[in-house]
């Protein structure tokens, strides 16, 4: 069987199955099994692309090349580990009486459908379908953010829906403008929104329309990436939703939205013949980085704080891709991988920690290392990794971004160093007493799943010390495609 079709069919079918069957004893296992199947199919697809180059599927409607297959593999992997983590996590939530059976069913079916929409968004060749899949990804997660039905979670979900709805509407306007520019060159057939056709004709697209279109696309998809000033939904949604949802939002959804911007940037660069798109991204990225760093120190809720840290890193990645060129793109891709793995590991550790202590307020979480050394160490190491301490992989990518900026955009370096320094002080100062110090936590009814935390951190550590040559080649090829 074609691994590509399997990869899309498994989450879709199992999502439907989990909806119909309801909450049974085997449902959590089916959720994990489906995620494992998706991951294996994605791995098969990756192997195929690495071996024999880009391919189409369903006519020309889907297109997989070395750029998006990299995101596909990452998405399927984090999807798998998050489903493993969420088994005991959600069981504990149910045992604490925070979730009922219908809500557990809603969670699992929406989780699978969310994976499906993200994989469609990543693999589609049609920029219109990309938009549809991004919107569908929002819709599947809105009800997950409000899963606890508390006033705060409803408020967060409402904000998420309205802000992302408005943002995504801007992106649709950008897509319409893009189509408007393209149909003058490619004709009125359905092909005018296919990325592969657009790329071959990008030099002929009207620069004025493309500039306007890119602004709308950047603001629109940028809302979902969490770029300031449209980032307000992100901390609320991360803090109030269940932790597995925070992990996939931070680790995956933000990446997919940024991927959409990158695809559009390639077209805009080809049409405009200047650094317009890159400069715009650098500006937004730097502003986001700085703003998030200063908001970090004000946070009291641990998930909210790490949500701001996600905004900060997304700003840094956007800045890296804005600089453009092989080195910066390579660093951006590497940083995206590192951030996804590290941030989801942190959310896993934080999820178990908050369950043990029964609160998300950092002032009340103390002495994790005595309660459960594994959770304590997981959180501490994850935090050190995300703050860019060597020898973790985040250090490598941040170092590359900084040195490249020093060489080509020296003015930005002090701003970046300031933001990274402030973020370091804020996060480390708050996590340190959470891990050490005195405690009064109790046992959990279901043993937490710690393995995913350390699998992720081990990968981040390995990539910090040694990047296998095939991975380097792969990153380089993807970076070259971004121009």
């Amino acid at each position, binding site marked *: 069987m074609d691994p590509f079709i399997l990869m899309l069919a498994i989450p879709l079918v199992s999502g439907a199955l989990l909806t119909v069957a309801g909450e049974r004893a085997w449902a959590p296992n089916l959720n994990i099994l489906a995620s494992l199947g998706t991951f294996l199919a994605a791995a098969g697809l990756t192997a195929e692309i690495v071996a024999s180059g880009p391919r189409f599927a369903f006519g020309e*409607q889907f297109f997989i090349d070395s750029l998006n297959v990299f995101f596909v593999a990452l998405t399927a992997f984090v999807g798998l580990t998050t489903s493993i983590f969420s088994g005991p996590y959600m069981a504990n939530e149910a045992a604490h009486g925070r979730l009922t059976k219908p809500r557990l069913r809603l969670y699992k079916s929406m989780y699978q459908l969310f994976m499906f929409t993200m994989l469609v968004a990543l693999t589609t060749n*049609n920029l*219109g*379908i990309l*938009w*549809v899949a991004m*919107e*569908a990804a929002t*819709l599947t997660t*809105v*009800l997950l953010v*409000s899963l606890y*039905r*508390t*006033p*705060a979670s*409803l*408020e*967060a*979900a*409402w*904000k998420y*829906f*309205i802000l992302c*709805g*408005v943002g995504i*509407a801007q992106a*649709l*306007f950008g*897509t*319409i*403008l893009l*189509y*408007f520019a393209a*149909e*003058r060159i490619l004709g*009125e057939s*359905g092909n*005018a*929104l296919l990325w592969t056709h657009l790329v071959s004709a990008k030099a002929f697209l*009207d620069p*004025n*329309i493309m500039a*306007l279109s890119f602004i709308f696309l950047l603001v629109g998809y940028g809302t979902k990436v969490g770029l300031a000033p449209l980032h307000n939904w992100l*901390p*609320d949604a991360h*803090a*109030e939703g269940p932790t597995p949802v925070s992990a996939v939002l931070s680790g995956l959804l933000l990446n997919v939205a940024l991927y959409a911007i990158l695809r559009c940037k390639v077209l805009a660069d080809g049409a405009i013949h200047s650094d317009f798109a890159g400069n715009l991204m650098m500006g937004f990225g730097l502003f986001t980085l700085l703003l998030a760093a200063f*908001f970090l120190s*004000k*946070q*009291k809720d641990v998930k909210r704080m790490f949500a701001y840290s996600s905004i900060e890193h997304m700003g840094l990645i956007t800045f890296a891709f804005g600089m453009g060129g092989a080195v910066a793109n390579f660093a951006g891709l590497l940083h995206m991988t590192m951030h996804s793995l590290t941030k989801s590991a942190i959310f896993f550790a934080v999820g178990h920690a908050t369950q043990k202590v029964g609160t998300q307020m950092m002032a009340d979480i103390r002495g994790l290392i005595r309660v459960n050394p594994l959770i304590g160490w997981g959180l501490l190491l994850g935090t050190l990794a995300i703050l860019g301490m060597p020898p973790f992989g985040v250090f490598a990518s941040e170092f590359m971004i900084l040195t490249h900026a020093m060489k080509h955009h020296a003015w930005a370096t002090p701003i970046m160093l300031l933001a990274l320094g402030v973020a370091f002080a804020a996060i480390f100062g708050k996590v340190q007493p959470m891990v050490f110090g005195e405690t009064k936590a109790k046992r959990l009814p279901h043993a937490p799943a710690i393995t995913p935390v350390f699998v992720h951190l081990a990968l981040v550590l390995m990539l910090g010390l040694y990047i296998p040559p095939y991975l380097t080649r792969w990153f380089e090829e993807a970076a070259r495609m971004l121009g």
Partner: protein
Amino acid sequence: MNATPLFAQLINLFAAVILLLSFSMLAQRRVIQLINLFALQGFTLFLSTLVVAVNTGQSHLYWSAGLTLALKAMLLPWILHRLVRQLQVKSEVEPLVNIPTTMLIGIVLVMISFNVALPISQLSSAIARGTLGIALAVVMLAFLMMITRRKAITQVVGFLSMENGLFLAATSATYGMPMVVELGIALDVLVGVIILGVFFFQIRDQFDSLDIHHMERLKDN
């Protein structure tokens, strides 16, 4: 693709009506009337799509027109009316900014939209000239409505009206997006409204009101 003057004028006429309806929605104080105005906007959108379809003879535009009529002029207003009845929403819309000021801001937004769209309109064929600016203005006015209104349901009408503006841009300026994209967009909008319906009940159960004023507790401090 040469449009006869009559067709071009009809499209401009309908686009102008849609813009006027956006303004009257901004000025409207009653929820029921607001939904009716939204339905009327959907119907006008159907007419303008139909005119483009007849003029260009593209079969998929007839489908779009039919979809618009069914979804935006009938199904969505019906769902919204049902929600208002079941949730017993009070009929007054409470604006955060008073209405004359909102209208003035609206006029400024329309001028900005026309200026932004001007260089692009000049590239367009005769049939679409000006409509892109109008479509952008409709999007901006809907955005304004979402910002200045307090009730959750008014924000949703604003959101859907924004969709109308986007659809106007898609049909009049580009003769419609590819069919598969339009179907996807329609599906997303429909699913979105259904989810919001579910969501309204949750909000009301928690807050005993659909006033989003209650939902301002999440802040950075």
